[in-house]
């Protein structure tokens, strides 16, 4: 080849050819398959397949059903893809060996879905449109609330030690959201066995990271609006305040959990009701109005809504079928009960170390013990829905 033979790229915008009629639209003629206009490789949850299912189901392949050549790349130990043994929980069919491939074996695996993990559907039906629509709505609403508060000088109504409470304690919670959002939830989006699991988990992750940033930027606004507001107090509180070290310890422990399902279970089934909701719904939301603050509850309420109405919802849909699994119900129930035995005491201890916060605002929220009782009974309700027993540790 000589240099002159090389094509000389033209930077000019190409002219576009004239449209031609091809009559390539649906229904233009009849032939085999001409009316088969639905994805035919999975069985929908309901009679008709949903838009959500169409854009998520089977994107992540599985050698147990269609993936005939198996995973092509592995870690150093040879494991590729999304190993089922990344959690000790099992869905029916999990124990069957991967179909063997050999000369002339053909490509058939087990009949779809091959195992119970593929039956999970996110009841929130999250995919790209819903993710951006929901989160943008939250962002817009919070921006408006904070702007309106600033214009109406609403922050001037706050009791002085409520200013401090928000700087220190509401501020401290941003670290919980951030740490779990990244190192528990985003981390787990690599670990679940199907695309539906991992997509739901990644959406959960963004809720938490967004909520962390909402709190941080709110904190920044307050530093600009309120002269006495200490924008760095949250750092010292999170790192040094003994009242927060229980929460910090358990948050760190959650991110150190190897088994993705245990981490998710411990965070959304145990930690959030016993610590998250205790702090958000039973402390901040109760104390704020009495201290002249009608703005903070809108931020905290947005996070609470994400958890209670979306993240907990998919979490229940994820674990419930495993408790009732046709093959591994007993194994899964035993495992989850043991997780409860481990995590309930940790979370209760963290909750109790928060107790000093209840006496700090001028206008006091309802008593800590009542708040904790409410959190416990909410938690008991979640366990009942999942078909799990209250662990004896709950009464300690």
């Amino acid at each position, binding site marked *: 080849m000589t240099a002159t033979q090389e094509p000389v790229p033209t930077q000019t915008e190409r002219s576009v050819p004239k449209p031609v009629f091809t009559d390539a*639209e649906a229904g233009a003629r009849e032939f085999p398959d001409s009316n088969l206009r639905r994805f035919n490789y999975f069985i929908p949850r309901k009679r008709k397949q949903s838009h959500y299912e169409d854009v998520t189901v089977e994107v992540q392949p599985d050698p147990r059903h269609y993936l005939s050549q198996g995973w*092509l*790349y592995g870690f150093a130990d040879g494991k590729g893809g999304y190993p089922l043994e990344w959690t000790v929980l099992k869905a029916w069919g999990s124990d069957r060996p991967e179909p063997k491939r050999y000369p002339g074996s053909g490509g058939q695996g087990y009949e779809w879905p091959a195992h119970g993990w593929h039956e999970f559907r996110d009841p929130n039906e999250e995919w790209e449109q819903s993710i951006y629509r929901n989160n943008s709505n939250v962002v817009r609403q919070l921006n408006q609330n904070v702007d309106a508060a600033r214009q109406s000088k609403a922050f001037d109504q706050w009791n002085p030690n409520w200013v401090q409470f928000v700087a220190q304690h509401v501020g401290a919670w*941003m670290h919980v959201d951030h740490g779990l959002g990244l190192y528990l939830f985003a981390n787990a989006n690599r670990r679940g066995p199907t695309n539906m699991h991992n997509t739901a988990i990644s959406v959960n992750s963004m809720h938490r990271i967004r909520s962390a940033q909402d709190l941080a930027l709110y904190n920044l606004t307050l530093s600009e609006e309120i002269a006495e507001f200490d924008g760095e107090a949250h750092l010292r509180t999170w790192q040094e305040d003994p009242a927060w070290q229980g929460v910090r310890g358990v948050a760190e422990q959650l991110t150190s959990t190897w088994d993705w399902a245990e981490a998710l279970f411990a965070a959304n089934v145990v930690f959030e009701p016993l610590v998250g909701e205790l702090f958000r719904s039973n402390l901040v939301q109760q104390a704020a109005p009495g201290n002249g603050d009608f703005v903070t509850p809108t931020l905290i309420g947005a996070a609470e809504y994400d958890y209670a109405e979306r993240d907990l919802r998919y979490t229940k849909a994820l674990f419930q079928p495993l408790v009732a699994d046709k093959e591994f119900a007993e194994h899964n129930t035993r495992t989850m009960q043991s997780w409860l035995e481990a995590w309930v005491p940790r979370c209760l201890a963290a909750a109790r170390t928060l107790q000093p916060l209840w006496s700090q605002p001028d206008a006091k929220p309802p008593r800590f013990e009542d708040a904790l009782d409410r959190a416990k009974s909410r938690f008991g309700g979640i366990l009942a829905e999942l078909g799990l027993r209250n662990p004896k540790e709950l009464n300690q």
Partner: protein
Amino acid sequence: MTRQSVAKAHEKIQELSWEPAYHEPVSQYGTDYTFSKAKKKDPLKQVLRSYFPMEEEKDHRVYGAQDGAIRGNMFRQVQPRWMEWQKLFLSIIPLPEISAARAMPLLFRTVPNPELHNGQAIQMIDEVRHSTIQQNLKRLYMNNYIDPAGFNSSLRNFQNDYAGTIGRQFAEGFITGDAITAASVYLTIVAETAFTNTLFVAMPGEAAANGDYLLPTVFHSVQSDESRHISNGYATLLMALSDESNHQLLERDLRYAWWNNHCVVDAAIGTFIEYGTKDRRKDRESYAEMWRRWIYDDYYRSYLVPLEKYGLTIPHDLVEESWNRIWNKGYVHEVAQFFATGWIANYWRIDPMTDEDFEWFEHKYPGWYDKYGAWWENYNRLSVPNGHKPIAFEDVDYVYPHRCWTCMVPCLIRQDMVMDEVDGQWRTYCSEGCHWTDAVAFRDTYEGRQTPNMGKLTGAREWETLYHNWNFADIVKDMGYVRDDGETLVAQPHLDLDPKKMWTLDHLRRCPPFPSPNVSLNEMTDSERQAFHSDYVRQGPAGRPAPAE
């Protein structure tokens, strides 16, 4: 909050991370690279409260265009030749996208700089966006294009066909093995920085020329997220470069990632753009011309070469050889010819080339007709069933190729084929680069250095092995590529939808059994194998048998 400057907001969110005092986050992925914990700048400066509305706004444009396209009946003007290749492309691409999302956590513990993690988390959700928006586009095609076959079975096809397997590397390579090799070098530094231009800019341009303006709408929207991902990759790369002991691994990984991306992406996208278009105006850029501009000039010369100032050796030889394969060795043409030879194993239809196509190819690639013209004339002649067999079983001067063990594209540039016994098995490779990837790079030592975290090539990598000595009618049934009359094939070597002109299982029954090239290779005696090798490397171009000696 809205009035806060982006810079201030961004600085504030740096306060979110903290040093663990009681428990370290779980460490699940290994790397042989070393990173020092130093304060870094988040290259993205992206805050979610502006990110979400920005993406939502982009969505409005995409979905608005989709409504408009359906109302305006875009599909009356779409070229079926182009749409058929979308059955392959859109079966593949949602997995690479979602795999990029899944890859992000591989970097959390291995790159110990929390400032980068915010950007990685945003990339994660970007990729969820890309994957599902592309699935949605495919769903729209299935619902509105004349022939839904192949779209309707898309993700099953993708999982059980050799063509899906080739594409799948561009996904599994992101999420396994050494965390930095995978999620940083292969994914962001090579795949995203170099090859997304051909995927997300060249492809949409060609789509528009074929009457489809939805693919451009979706893919430009996807591409507009890409610059952030490129910044993520670059930030990690600079950190890796700052430790001299990483250079050896970076050089290895750039070689592997470059060569694999070239083998896989240029095979697929090159074929779509050159053989999937009806636009034969002479002023339209060929794939080679686009490649020269976007990959050679924009990536190689402007991005890779400047890394040399950090003391890194970059793979000049492989870049030049990729170009040599595209420009002199007919890589894209050989691949397209192979796809068309093997149409019976596909889940889309391939339109024969016409005189107008021939003329364009000859204009853009002088000498094309002498090499490929006769074969495509045969393809045309054999496209409608008329007592003959599919072209793969007819004598058209074409030797069915062996597959490359590494990239799984067949060894089409016959003279470059490498044969070696690796891990106790005789394997063929399309090139030295692919042989090196398997025999040298994906091992637990590299140039005498321990690399315990390096990944492994796994799986039944030769698709034909699974169907060793099967009849093709049974193969097609096994894969599920039969239309709803139980007889007519999804794949066809033409675009005519007249049922009388379409191939059925019966036509395939008349073909002889189909032996696996690799199984056969391993059954040979040493001298037979040597003879096979010396014959193979004298074959071609265009798959022609070796001339008599």
